C-alpha cells in the first residue's frame, strides 16, 4: 500500500505558512520549558522523597507547590503549539492520533489524574505521611511520563506515513509506534532534558527564595545545578544514540547535507557543552542562558528533522492559502493586550508577596 495515498487532503490556510511556523515554534518553546519544569520537578521531588524524606521535606514542599502551576501552564502553553501544529500538519497529526486513538484519548484521563494527584500532594503535603506522599507523587509523575510517551509515539507516527498501514491491523486505536527506531531515544531525550531543566529551575527558584537561610539557599542552588549538569551529560549520550537512530535521509541533513540544519545542530551541541560547563562551575545565569539557547536551537533542529521526515510527501509551503489577515491582526492585538494585563496581574501578585514578606 502506497503510504502517500493514505495522506488526507489538507484544508487551506488563512495566511502564509510561515506565520504559523513562527507561532508554532514560539509557543512550543514555552510549552516545552514548562513541561520540562513539571516533569523535572516531579522527578527530583520524588527522588528526594525516596532518598531522604526528612532532610528534603521543606524543599520537596516548595517544589510540590510549583508542580501544579507547571501542570496548568504545560497544558495551557501546549494548547497553542498543538493548534498551530494542526493548522500546518493536521492531515498528519489527526491520522496518527486516530491510529493510536485509545492511547491518545487516554492522555486526557492521565492528565486529569496527574493534575488532581499533584494538587492532593500539594494540599496534603504536611498532613500525609511520607509514604503516602511518595505514592501520590509517584502516581502523578507516572501519569505525566506516560503522557510524554504517548506524545512521543504520536509525533513520530505523524511524520512516518510508512508506518500508517498498521491501522488496518489495529483499527481499534490500540497501536503504538513501538517499531519506530528513534522512539525510545527520542522519548528519553525529552525526559532527561526535563530533569536537567528541573534541576536548573530548582536552582533558579532557590536563588529567588530570599526567605531561606543563606546556607540552605546555596545548598539548593548547588544541588539544582548538579541535577542540571549530570542530566545534561546523560542527555548528550542519549542524544548521540537518538541521532544515530535517525533514518539516513534525516541524519544526512545534520551532517552536512543541509547547511542550516548542520549549523543549528552544531550550535545546539555546543550549547549543551556550555550547559555542562556552566552547570559544573555553578554559574547560574550563564547556565540558564546556555540552556535557553540550546533548547531554542534543538526546537529548530527538531522542526527541520520533521521536514526531512515528511520531505517525500509534503512541505507546509505546499498548502493552499485563501488569504484573510484581519483575524490574525486581531489576534496579535489581543495577545499584546493580554500579555500586558498578565504582566499587570503578576505585578499585583509580586507587590502583594512583597508586602506580606515585609
Amino acid at each position: 500500500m502506497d503510504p502517500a495515498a493514505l495522506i488526507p487532503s489538507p484544508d487551506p490556510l488563512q495566511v502564509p505558512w510561515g506565520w504559523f511556523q513562527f507561532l508554532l515554534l514560539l509557543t512550543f518553546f514555552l510549552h516545552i520549558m514548562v513541561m520540562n519544569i513539571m516533569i523535572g520537578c516531579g522527578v527530583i521531588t520524588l527522588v528526594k522523597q525516596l532518598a531522604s524524606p526528612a532532610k528534603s521535606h521543606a524543599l520537596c514542599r516548595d517544589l510540590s507547590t510549583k508542580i501544579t502551576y507547571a501542570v496548568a501552564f504545560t497544558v495551557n502553553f501546549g494548547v497553542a503549539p498543538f493548534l498551530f501544529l494542526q493548522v500546518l500538519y493536521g492531515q498528519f497529526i489527526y491520522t496518527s492520533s486516530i491510529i493510536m486513538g485509545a492511547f491518545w484519548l487516554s492522555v486526557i484521563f492521565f492528565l486529569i489524574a496527574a493534575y488532581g494527584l499533584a494538587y492532593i500532594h500539594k494540599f496534603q503535603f504536611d498532613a500525609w505521611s511520607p509514604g503516602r506522599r511518595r505514592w501520590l507523587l509517584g502516581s502523578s509523575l507516572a501519569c505525566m511520563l506516560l503522557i510524554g510517551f504517548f506524545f512521543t509515539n504520536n509525533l513520530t507516527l505523524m511524520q512516518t506515513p510508512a508506518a500508517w498501514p498498521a491501522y488496518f491491523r489495529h483499527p481499534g486505536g490500540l497501536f503504538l509506534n513501538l517499531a519506530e527506531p528513534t522512539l525510545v531515544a527520542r522519548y528519553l531525550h525529552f525526559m532527561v532534558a526535563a530533569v536537567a531543566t528541573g534541576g536548573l529551575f530548582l536552582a533558579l527558584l532557590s536563588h529567588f527564595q530570599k526567605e531561606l537561610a543563606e546556607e540552605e539557599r546555596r545548598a539548593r542552588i548547588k544541588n539544582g545545578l548538579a541535577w542540571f549538569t549530570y542530566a545534561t551529560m546523560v542527555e548528550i549520550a542519549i542524544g548521540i544514540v537518538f541521532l544515530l537512530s535517525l533514518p539516513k535521509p534525516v541524519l544526512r541533513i545534520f551532517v552536512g547535507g543541509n547547511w542550516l540544519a548542520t549549523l543549528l545542530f552544531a550550535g545546539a551541541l555546543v550549547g549543551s557543552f556550555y550547559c555542562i560547563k556552566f552547570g559544573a562551575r555553578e554559574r547560574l545565569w550563564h547556565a540558564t542562558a546556555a540552556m535557553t539557547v540550546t533548547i531554542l536551537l534543538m526546537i529548530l533542529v527538531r522542526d527541520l528533522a520533521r521536514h526531512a521526515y515528511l520531505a517525500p510527501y509534503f512541505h507546509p509551503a505546499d498548502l493552499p492559502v485563501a488569504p484573510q489577515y484581519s483575524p490574525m491582526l486581531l489576534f496579535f492585538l489581543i495577545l499584546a493586550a493580554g500579555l500586558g494585563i498578565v504582566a499587570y496581574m503578576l505585578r499585583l501578585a509580586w507587590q502583594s508577596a512583597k508586602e506580606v514578606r515585609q
Partner: protein
Amino acid sequence: MNYPIWELTLFGGGLTIALMAVFHVFISHFAIGGGLFLVLTEWYGYRQNSTAIVDYVKTHTRFFLLVTMVLGGMTGVGIWFVISLINPATTSILIHNFVFGWAIEWVFFVAEIVSLLIYYYTFGRMNRRQHLILGWLYFLFAWLSLFVINGIIDFMLTPGRWLATGNFWDGFFNPSFWPSLFFRTFVALILAGLYGFLTATALKDPAFRLRMVRYCALWLLAPFALLVASTWWYVQALPEPIRAMLTQQPPELLLAIKIFLWTAPLLIVGGLIMTIRLPQSATRSLAVLLMAVGLCYLGAFEYIREGSRRPYTIHGHIYSHSILKKDIGKVAQAGLLKNARWVQHREITGQNRLAAGRELFFLTCASCHSIGGPTRDIIRLTKGYNSIDALAARIGGLCDLNSAMPAFPGNAAEQQALAAYIFEVLQQREKPAAAAEITPQQHEVPPFDPAAAEYVLLAWNEYGMHTISDSDSRFSLRPPGNTIHAMLIKRGARPQVISEGIDIHYTVEAGSTNPAGQVEFWNHAASLTDREIPPNTGPTGNGTSGLMRPATDGRTFSATEVPLAPYQEGGGYLPYPLVTFAAVDRASSAMLATATMVAPVSTEWGCRNCHGGPWRKAGSGLSPETADNILGVHDRYAKTTLLRQAGEGKPLRCQLCHPDPRDGKGNPKGLSLSAAMHGFHAPILKGRGADACFFCHQDGAPHGATRFYRGIHNELGLDCTACHGVMEDHALSLLMAEQQAGKTAAARRLALLKPVGVDQPAQIKPRQAWISQPDCLGCHVDFQPPGSSTAFNQWTAGEADLFRRRTDNMGIPCAACHNSAHAVYPATNPYDAERDNIIPRQYQGNPYPLGANKNCALCHTREMKEEMHHPNSLTNFRNVR
C-alpha cells in the same frame, strides 16, 4: 472518507464525544458564572463587613479552582482530542477557519489561569481593591473565552453567510451568535448558584448556612426569566428549516426536548425549596440532586443543539459521516469505496462483501452509532429488519424518514454490502423463515351442457385479491373477507339478465368456513368497527354462506364483505378459497345454474421485512410483534399513542384517521391510507422498480405465498409498474390528489420524492386511491390490442369508470367476463393453475374471457355478427395457450 476511522464499536463516536462534552460544558459554564459569583460575593462580604462571607468565598474559591482547572480545563482539551479522533474532517475545518479565533481564546485562557491562580493564592493577602480587580479580570477573561467559543460552536449550527463567503467574520458572528451568548451567560449564572449550594450547604453555622444557601438560590432563580427570554430569542434566530424541525419535535430529539422543558421548572422549584430552613442533610442531598438536574438541563440543551444540526456537523456544509455536502452526489455515484482513502476493498465481490460492508459501516455509521453500546446501538436499531434487502432499502432512504440522518453516500452495491455486514455479522442473523409453502390444490369444474343449459351463472369478486391485516389485537387495515358478485343470464337468441324471481346462494368451501377460528377480528370488532359483530359474520351481516342481495343496478347480485381468512381449518395457508354459487327459482325452488370461483383473501404483508417479528400463522400474517413495531414507529413519527391503546385492548382501524375514499369516512384532514402508506414508504423503496411493490404487498420477493398477480398480463411479462407506475410515481400521484384536496400533510412527503417516469412532478396526474385507477382503455384504446405497455398516468375519471364498476354496452360488468383485476382470464393460480379460470372452463372449456374466440353462443346460443358488447369483442383471443 479522508481519514481513517477509529473503530470504537461499543462506545460509538457519539457517546464518546457526549461524555466528554457534557461534562466539560457543565464545568466550563460554572467557570464563567462562578467567577462572577466569587468576585461579587467577596465584594458583598466586604460591604457587609462579614468575615464569615469572605471566608466562605475563600473556601469556595479553592473548590472552584480545583473543579474548573483540573476537571474543566482538562476536559476542554479533551473535547478537542475527542472530536479530532471521531470527526477529524470537521475538526480540521474548524481549526483552519477559526485558527485565530482559537488563538485569541488561548490568550484569554492564559489570562484566566493567571488571574485565577493569583486570586486564590493572594486571597486575604492582597489589598481588597486589587483583589477584587483580579476577580473581575478573571470573570472578564472567562466570559471572553465563552464569547469566542460560542461563535465557533454556533457557527456549526448556523454558519450563515460563511457558506457562501468562507469569511471568518461571517462564520463567527453567525445568526445564532448573540442569542446563544446571552443564553449561555444566563446558564452560567444559574450554575454558579447550583455549585454554590454544594459549598454553602457544608457550612457549619445553621444561620449563616441558611443565609448563604438563600444567597445561592438567588443566583439560581434570578436569571431564569432572562434565560427563558434568551431561549426564545435563540429559537427565533434559527433559520426556518431548523426552527420548523424543532417545532415538530422530531422523535430523535423528543426526549431531550422533554428533559429540557421539564428540568427548568424543577430547578426553579428546587431553588425555592432550598430557601426553606431544612436540616443540613436534606439541603446537602438536595444540592447534589439539583446538580444532577442542572447537568440534565444543560446536557439536554446541548443535545438539542447538536441534534438540530444533524445530519450535518457544520450545517449545510459537511455531514456527520464527514462527507462534504457538495461532494455527496459525486461520491454516491462513483461509490464510496472508490473515493475513500482508508479502505482495503475498492470493488465489492462475492468474497469480500462482508469485509467491504464492515469498512462501509465504519466510514458511514460509526461516527454516531455504537455496536452493542448504550447509544444509537446499530444492533438494536436494525433488529427489526428481517432481510438484507429490507435493510439495504432502509439504508437507501435514511435521510428521507429521519431528518437526523445523512443520505447514504454510496451506490446500490454498497448499500447491499453494508446491509449484509449489519445483518450477517453484527446481527448474526440468517435468512428468516420464508412465507408459507404453496400446497397444491384441486378443484372441480361444475357441469355445463352447452346444448341444453338454459342459464349461465356468472360470478366474480370485487378485488382480485383482498389483503387483510390479521393483526386485529393491534390494528386493522380491513375486516377479513371479500365482496362477491354474481349475474344470471338466461340463454337464447336474445339473452336476458334475470334478476327477478330468483335467489342466488353462495357457500364458501369447507375448511374455510370458520374464519373466526383463524383470526381475532371478532374478538376486537367492537373496538375496530365501533360495534359488536357476531363471529364468522362480515360487517354487513353476511356469513360464509347465504343469500346474495340484489345490487342497486337491478341486474347483479352481491354479498358484500363475506367473512374469509386465508387459513384452513386443518392448518395451512390458502389464499384462494372457493365459493360455490347456486341460482334457484324462487317459486319452484328449481336449481337454475351453479358456478364456482375463488374468493381471494390474503394476509401476506411484507411489513415484517422491516418491522421485524415472525409470521403470525402458517407462514403468513401480521404477528403482534410486527404490529407493535409498526405502532411504535407510528407513535414516534405522528406522536400518537396507538401502541398504548392497543395494549389497553383498544385497537383501532387505520381508516379512522386515514380515510378510505370509497366510503368517505374518517378524519377528513388525514391522508388517505393509500397515500399515507405509499407516501411514507416511497423514499425508502425508491429506485427499486417492481421489487418495491413486492417488499410490502407480499413476502418481499416476487415469489411469496400468495402471488396475487396471476392474470394474463403477468404471463405477458408486465409487472406492477406497467399499470401503477414505479413506487415514486405511484406515491406522487396519490399524494398530489391529497394535496389538491387541501391536505397539508401531503407536502412533506411530496418534497421527498422525485418522479421517475416523467421529468417533472407536474406531469403526473393526481389520482384518488381506489376511486381512480389505471384505465384498461389507456393501453387497450377502444378495446383494441394495446398500443403501449404502460397505463401509468392514464387514470379512470371516476368510480363509475373503474374496471370493477364498469359495464359493456349491454350492461354486463367487465369483470363478469374478464374476471377481477389482477386475475383477468386466462389466469394462472399458483396453488392450482386453473383455479381462477373455473368459470370459463365450465362454460367454454377454455380459460379465456367469456365469449372469446367468437363464442357468442355461450349466451346467444348462436353466432353473432355484430360487436354489441364492445368493439373488438368479436375476435379470436390473441394470447392463446
